[in-house]
C-alpha cells in the first residue's frame, strides 16, 4: 500500500503534467480516460507507484520499473501508433484524426 493515497484529482493532475511535458494529448474519450485514471489511481494506492493500468504487476517496483507511467515504451509507441499502450496519451496528430485507439503490441515482452 502507498503511504499517502492519491485522489482522482491528484491522478488527473499527474496525467495532465505528463501530457504537457511530453507534448501529448490526453485520450479525448472521457469514459475511457476516466477508466484509466481510476486504474492508475488504484494501482498507485495498492502498489505505491503509477503502474500502467493495462499491464500486470510482476510483483515488485523494480520488476515493474519500465511499466510505471509514463512507461518507457510510450516514447516509441506514441509516435509509431499515435497512442501509448493503454491509450491514455495520444499524439496531437492521432487525436486530430478522431480515430479510436486499438490494442497495440506490448513492447514489454518483445
Amino acid at each position, binding site marked *: 500500500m502507498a503511504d499517502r493515497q492519491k485522489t482522482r484529482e491528484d491522478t488527473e493532475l499527474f496525467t495532465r503534467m505528463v501530457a504537457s511535458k511530453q507534448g501529448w494529448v490526453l485520450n479525448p474519450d472521457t469514459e*475511457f480516460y476516466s477508466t484509466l485514471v481510476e486504474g492508475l489511481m488504484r494501482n498507485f494506492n495498492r502498489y505505491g507507484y503509477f503502474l500502467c493500468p493495462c499491464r*500486470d504487476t510482476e*510483483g515488485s517496483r523494480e520488476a515493474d520499473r519500465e511499466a510505471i507511467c509514463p512507461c518507457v515504451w510510450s516514447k516509441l509507441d506514441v509516435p509509431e501508433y499515435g497512442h501509448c499502450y*493503454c491509450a491514455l496519451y495520444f499524439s496531437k496528430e492521432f487525436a486530430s484524426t478522431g480515430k479510436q485507439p486499438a490494442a*497495440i503490441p*506490448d513492447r514489454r515482452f518483445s
Partner: protein
Amino acid sequence: MNLEGLPVVTKEGTRRDHDIMIFALSTCGFCKRALSFLDANGFAYRYLYVDLIPLETKNAIKQELRERFHESVAFPFAVIDNEHHLVGFIEADWKLTLGV
C-alpha cells in the same frame, strides 16, 4: 485450468455458441471495452480479474496460458472454446473469431 475458488464472474447472455473465458485487469480500459463488446453482442461468458487474485496463483495461470498458446500474456486475454485465443482488444478480430 483449475479456476476453482477464484473470483470468476459468470455473465449470462443469449449467445452461447462459444465457450468464452476472459482474463483481464480491473484497471484496463481495453479490458472494459472487450467486456462491453461481449455484453452488447449478447454473449454468455466468464471473466477473471487477475490483478485481484494472489500473485502466485496469477503467475501460475499466466504460465499455463503462455505454455498452451505460445504467446506472452497481455490483457484482455480471451480463451475461446478452450482452443483459440485473442490477446488485446481489436474489435474486428473479436468480431471475426466470434462470428459477429
